[in-house]
């Protein structure tokens, strides 16, 4: 059974639709992206799945707990999901440890997990400082620790790097990458394509409604840069697919890389570089938006 199954979720506020027709599935251990411009309905979708909003239409199951129209997720659902909210949302006068302990107690999680998480995210030395005195990066890492304190089945990360400076962004991205490597089920909500590209296996494009669920293929394509365009007939049999863009070849290899390079050299090509080609998410996104009739 999938960790998350959403069918036709829709939500409006005061008659204004925030999102509609949101359907996707997230497998256990998958890092799934929710991509879209600001105001696209990503956070609304996340809040419905985290049990904060009741959908107007559609149904969902999160960690085995149902969500139905007019009925938000139950306390049992909220106990099984971790939510990183858009702003850290802690109490300024309480220390980092007191803040984390408070949320651990609300989740009925053992207090010892707090210290373990503080240490894990490099906050141990700052645990007794008031939350207000922490840096932005520390605050965000504490918020991630809170989302994990009760060992949830599903973790929702809402714009984890928004408003952070480059150093804090790097820190937080490293933490998210670490969580992804641990095979946790994560839904990452962002408008940063590179975050999704780097961390997710699939992403749902949302712009008021679900436009598409896109599979992110990493390292399946090989990008070969040549000194000058050549006719690549000699390598066609070594590839599942081949696309030529001037002096650049994008191939889905069937044979080993040295074999392909050797074939190219035999065809008279001068190979400048060979590298895994990341899925051009931006292109896919713009194309899908254009197809959906949105600017």
């Amino acid at each position: 059974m999938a960790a998350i199954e959403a069918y036709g979720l829709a939500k409006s506020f005061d008659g204004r639709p925030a999102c509609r027709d949101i359907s996707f599935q997230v497998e256990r251990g998958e890092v799934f992206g929710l991509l879209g411009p600001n105001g696209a309905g990503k956070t609304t979708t996340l809040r419905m799945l985290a049990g904060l909003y009741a959908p107007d239409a559609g149904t969902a199951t999160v960690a085995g707990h149902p969500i139905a129209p007019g009925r938000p997720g139950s306390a049992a659902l909220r106990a099984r999901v971790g939510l990183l909210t858009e702003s850290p949302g802690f109490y300024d006068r309480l220390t980092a440890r007191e803040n984390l302990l408070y949320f651990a107690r609300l989740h009925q999680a053992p207090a010892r997990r707090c210290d373990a998480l503080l240490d894990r995210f490099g906050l141990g030395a700052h645990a007794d400082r008031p939350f207000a005195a922490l840096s932005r990066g520390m605050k965000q890492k504490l918020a991630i620790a809170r989302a994990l304190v009760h060992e949830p089945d599903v973790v929702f990360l809402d714009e984890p790097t928004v408003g952070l400076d480059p150093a804090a962004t790097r820190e937080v991205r490293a933490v998210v990458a670490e969580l992804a490597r641990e095979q946790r089920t994560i839904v990452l909500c962002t408008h940063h394509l590179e975050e999704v590209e780097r961390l997710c296996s699939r992403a749902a494009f949302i712009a008021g409604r679900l436009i598409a669920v896109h599979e992110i293929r990493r390292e399946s394509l090989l990008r070969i840069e040549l000194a000058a365009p050549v006719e690549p007939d000699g390598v066609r049999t070594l590839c599942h697919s081949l696309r030529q863009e001037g002096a650049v070849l994008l191939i889905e290899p069937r044979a080993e890389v040295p074999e392909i390079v050797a074939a190219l050299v035999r065809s008279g090509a001068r190979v400048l570089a060979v590298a895994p080609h990341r899925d051009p998410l931006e292109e896919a996104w713009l194309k899908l938006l254009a197809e959906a009739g949105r600017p």
Partner: protein
Amino acid sequence: MIGVVFRKELLEVRRSPVLLLSMASLPATVVAVPLALLAWLLHAAPEQALVFVEDVYRIRLPEGAFAGVAAAMARNWLPMFLVLPIFLPIVLTAQSVGGERERRTLEPLLATPVSTLAIVAGKSLAATVPAVLITWVAAVVFCLGLDAIAGVWLLPDAAWTFGALVLAPLLALFGNATAVAVSSRVLDPRAAQNLSATTVLPLLALLVFQLAGRLALGTGFYIAMAAGVALADCVLLALAVRVFDRERLLTRWR
């Protein structure tokens, strides 16, 4: 869960010097101003003060000027004391509920499995318990001060004892429930505080009428008032839980 919310709220109050100061200033005023006024009046013109009291309040006490004037003060000042247990929880609750939204701590809180009842009850307890304790401390100081000035045992009498032990907790619940209900609907904590604070106006009206000699409230009135407030508490607390709509609280700014 109620205990978890309660302890966190108390910890936040303890760490907030401005909030503590604002909570202490009203009781200090309510105790110090009348006692200072009484002491000055009895020092400056005790006989004239007694004549004034006998004339306005139509009471005649055999203990002499000091005891007579102090007795009038003792009887008339109780409604002002009862403002404390209403007003203090309003200050705390408006900050607690509205402040959560303002500081963006509400979403993480509502994302936990904690029930609405536990949130409201925890926050309510954290607002009413300090308010009642502060009222009791202020009442003890006022009673001791007044008795010391009068030179006889005047307070606590039956009305003050009933007011402190029964009415004060009931009024604290009333103030808190009002503030929870208002804060759930009003975006700005300061606006919620101001709106909720209007509930003390009937008590202030009683105070004015009593000071003017138009009313002479006794224990019977306070018992009847307690029954009415207890009923209002039940209705308001149920309403407070009902209007504490989790989704609405998160979407108010949409």
